[in-house]
């Protein structure tokens, strides 16, 4: 269990996907840490990103803002950020302002992975055609 107010992000890599496991409290104090982590993942060439919220206890609008910072450029580059495994409490903050209109929010990261893999498969088929 993380100490109150702490925030942590860990990376997992799988084929063309990167998973960010976030934990703790994502507020104005910790959002810059998350923004740097996400920025570094993108600068490393990752454009298909799944953020797993399973261990995130809290998010404020400062945390929501981090996702807005990167989504436009990623989508222009045929990438995306998918969000998975939020608690009801965290989902309610996203839902309050309509963020599910812009982001895929999945109950299980395997669903997010599946969506990305289907997209990659379609892209490869189109390339061959």
């Amino acid at each position, binding site marked *: 269990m993380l100490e109150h107010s702490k925030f942590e992000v860990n990376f997992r890599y799988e084929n063309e996907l990167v998973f960010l496991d976030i934990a703790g409290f994502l507020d104005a*104090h910790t959002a810059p840490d998350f923004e740097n982590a996400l920025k570094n993942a993108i600068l490393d060439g990752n454009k298909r990103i799944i953020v797993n919220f399973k261990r995130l206890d809290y998010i*404020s609008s400062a945390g929501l803002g981090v996702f*807005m*910072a990167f989504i*436009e450029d990623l989508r222009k580059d045929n990438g995306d950020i998918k969000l998975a495994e939020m608690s009801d409490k965290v989902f309610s903050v996203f839902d309050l*302002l*309509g963020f599910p209109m812009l982001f895929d929010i999945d109950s299980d990261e395997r669903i997010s992975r599946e969506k990305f893999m289907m997209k990659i498969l379609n892209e490869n088929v189109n390339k061959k055609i």
Partner: protein
Amino acid sequence: MKTSTKKYNKSLCAEGNSKELEKIRDFIQFWSLYFGFNEVDTNKIILAVDEVCTNLINHAIKLDKSKEICIEVEHKKNDFIISISDDASPFDLTTKNNIDMSEYFANFRRGGLGIQIVRHVMDEISYSPSDKSNPRNILQLRKHLV
């Protein structure tokens, strides 16, 4: 939700530093639950206060740790009232226009959502800038206990 075992006075002062948000959230959590709000409403109130304080820290206090935010809670009839005061230059969050979220998402905008959240989750918001009789700006949030 973690139930705090700490005891609080009905007022709390914090430095103008985002590191203090944790302390502020714990304080609001304690009193919101104490006044009888359930966990869902308590989470909304915590979020609203966090958003107000974040705005004050980033825009009014501008990370000047010598400035102070003070929060006072009271209970009048069925209302939970939270007064957030500061000694920085007046910054009236309540004058910000509502954001059209469809337009916001279409243009991939960022920021400015704090007051939108506060309006969604609290029942009343009011602001009194500092003047000769009162040296502190006060933003008051009110939530009805149904």
